[in-house]
């Protein structure tokens, strides 16, 4: 390649997406990756790494509070529809408990801090529901030991934190919603719509009431009858004058010249007449009357006077009408309003639903009300289930932790025995190894489902085998048991039994496989819910098999202590802590139980 073609820019292009991967990152459904992606996109690469590494939970406190609110409160803002803090006392209690537990779980996951809120339910669970640990705790209580410190130690064993973190992520997923909430809302809406349909129906009673109200309004006019008549007359007169106003004005204008002059004359005559004494001046009065009569008889004057009077009345009438209406109008408006209401009701009545339709709607409302009650009950159950999931995160994580530990130790012991058995690759050796494998079904219950056969550990049957191991002689008793029982009793073929008996003559095989079977029985006993009670602890402490198991386990625990010292942090297994004290002075009081727990908790698995 020519040097000129390879420069810094080309190199930058060659780096490409590898150097700028953010360009390729889009949304994801995985909550951890999604939370990491969001932080990364916001320029918080280190925070993003913390989410991926499990150092912090992927949800913010706000996310958690929101999902708790959504799933534990039925209260909503009437305008926005947003969920609000619950007001119902039960919901409020659940909301506060869940919030507290979620906060405690976060503190433990992110900082390793254990508080009473998180520990309390775990202690209760271990005491009441964990057969493997309950007796150990009971004996610790009896001996006055600090159970809380013991439980704190269990919580800090590898695996528990991760279990809790997984449950935290699953159960507080911010997208989680109550499935029944939609049904409740839809049913409430349906019922409201149906009720609205019934609500629009106009009954005869409503019409009768409206009519009565109209009559009452009308009766308020009775005391004002005279004004009403006056008003009517004035209105009529005004309308009449209004119709003729044009011709009246024409007549007025046409006769005005003559009319005004004659009117002046007439007024003068009337003035003169007023000053005369009828007793002495009757002749003059009569003369004036003749003149006035003459003026009045003049057509021009008569027309002028009539037109003038009409115009004056026309001008005065609006004021008079208005004066009358001041008192009458409110009554008339009320009458109008009542009349309109009655007419509207009569009109609406024409569109009324039929009685049959009404019955159908009522039946529908009844049905949906029942469904709503059921949906509300289911919703409440869902809320309680969510509440349980959140507040039981600690004990569920511990249960999973213990079960996982039982399974881990079983697999570990099985592998040990299988390695020894696999050394002999002859046909006989393989047959003997198969026999050992099949003998383990002795303490299992066989069930068939869908054509498949399952073997489920039975703690009572497992205890029978364990009892053999706990007798003097330990694992050797199991070997004798295998030799003396028939093939049918052991659940193997005659050929397999022959091969097994032959192989049991090999001391290494005899020891490893018989003790291996006892260990498998012990693990299955615990998996099937067998109690690690006082008798069992005594057997472990005093029998050959038990002592051997503990000696072997102690060596592994010591190695594990060293290995996990850093991981456990805060010196959980150090002798300086209270947890460490269990390995010292009080060891024989409850040490075996704890040692057995450490074995089953899989601490030893890393150094097997």
């Amino acid at each position, binding site marked *: 390649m020519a040097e000129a073609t*390879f*420069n*810094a820019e080309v*190199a*930058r292009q*060659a*780096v*490409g*997406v*590898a*150097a*700028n*991967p*953010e360009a*390729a*990152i*889009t949304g*994801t459904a*995985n909550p*951890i*990756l999604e939370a*990491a*992606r969001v932080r*990364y996109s916001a*320029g918080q*690469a*280190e925070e*993003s*790494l*913390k989410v*991926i*590494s*499990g*150092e912090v939970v992927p949800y913010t406190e706000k996310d958690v509070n929101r999902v708790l609110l959504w799933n534990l409160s039925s209260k909503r803002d009437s305008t926005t529809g947003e969920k609000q803090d619950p007001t119902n006392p039960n919901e409020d209690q659940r909301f506060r408990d869940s919030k507290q537990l979620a906060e405690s779980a976060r503190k433990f996951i992110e900082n390793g801090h254990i508080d009473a809120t998180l520990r309390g339910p775990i202690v209760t669970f271990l005491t009441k529901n964990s057969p493997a640990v309950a007796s150990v705790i009971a004996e610790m209580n009896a001996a006055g030991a600090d159970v809380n410190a013991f439980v704190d130690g269990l919580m800090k064993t590898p695996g528990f934190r991760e279990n809790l973190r997984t449950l935290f992520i699953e159960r507080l997923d911010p997208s989680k919603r109550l499935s029944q909430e939609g049904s409740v809302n839809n049913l409430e809406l349906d019922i409201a719509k149906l009720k609205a349909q019934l609500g629009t129906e106009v009954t005869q009673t409503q019409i009768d009431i409206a009519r009565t109200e109209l009559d009452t309004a009308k009766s308020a006019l009775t005391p004002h009858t005279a004004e009403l008549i006056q008003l009517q007359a004035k209105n009529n007169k005004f309308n009449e004058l209004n119709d003729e106003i044009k011709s009246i004005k024409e007549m007025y204008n046409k006769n005005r010249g003559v009319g005004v002059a004659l009117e002046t004359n007439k007024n003068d005559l009337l003035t003169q007449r007023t000053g005369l004494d009828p007793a002495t001046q009757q002749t003059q009065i009569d003369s004036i009357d003749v003149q006035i009569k003459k003026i009045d008889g003049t057509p021009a004057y008569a027309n002028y006077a009539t037109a003038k009077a009409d115009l004056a009345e026309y001008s005065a009438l609006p004021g008079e009408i208005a004066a009358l209406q001041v008192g009458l109008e409110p009554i008339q408006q009320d009458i109008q309003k009542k009349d309109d209401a009655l007419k509207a009701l009569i009109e609406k009545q024409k569109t009324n639903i039929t009685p049959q339709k009404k019955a159908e709607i009522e039946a529908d409302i009844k049905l949906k009300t029942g469904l709503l009650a059921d949906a509300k009950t289911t919703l409440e159950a869902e809320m309680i289930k969510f509440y349980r999931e959140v507040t039981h995160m600690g004990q569920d994580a511990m249960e999973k932790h213990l079960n996982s530990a039982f399974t881990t130790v079983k697999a570990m012991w099985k592998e040990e025995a299988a390695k020894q058995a696999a050394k002999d690759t002859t046909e006989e050796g393989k047959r003997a190894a198969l026999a050992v494998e099949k003998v383990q079904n002795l303490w299992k219950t066989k069930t068939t489902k869908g054509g498949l056969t399952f073997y489920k550990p039975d703690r009572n049957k497992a205890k029978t085998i364990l009892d053999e191991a706990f007798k003097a002689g330990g694992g050797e008793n199991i070997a004798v048991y295998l030799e003396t029982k028939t093939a049918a009793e052991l659940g193997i073929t005659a050929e397999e039994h022959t091969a097994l008996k032959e192989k049991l003559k090999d001391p290494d095989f005899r020891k490893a496989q018989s003790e291996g079977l006892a260990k498998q029985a012990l693990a299955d006993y615990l998996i099937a819910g067998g109690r690690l009670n006082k008798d069992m602890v005594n057997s472990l402490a005093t029998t050959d098999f038990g002592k051997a198991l503990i000696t072997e386990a102690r060596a592994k625990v010591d190695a594990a202590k060293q290995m996990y010292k850093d991981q456990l942090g805060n010196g959980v297994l150090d002798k300086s802590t209270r947890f460490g004290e269990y390995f010292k002075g009080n060891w024989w009081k409850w040490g075996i139980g704890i040692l057995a727990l450490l074995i089953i908790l899989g601490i030893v698995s890393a150094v097997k």
Partner: protein
Amino acid sequence: MDQNLSAEEKKKNLINKITGILLDEMLKKKVDQELGQEIATYILNQSKNVKDDKSLDDFLRQLAEKYSIFKLYFVNSSLENQIKKTDEEKISSIKDQLSKLANFKSQ
């Protein structure tokens, strides 16, 4: 890598790049959650030791050796640094020559 940036800024930029690569690989399902968790923990723990350019280079080299998803970035990043260094040396050399030339003319 920009030589003008402080060690802390360079470290921040590097962490940003490698987090992007890790997220990208996880989203493409080429790295599962368990391995992703291990890698993220490794980056968080080991990056604490980065104090200067040398420890930054060492950190990236060891990361690429341990987890192959960072190999391409490590190679390209080293190459880019090398090219930049060469370019800077060339520019510096030209500047020196021009300076000498200028001094020669003015004499």
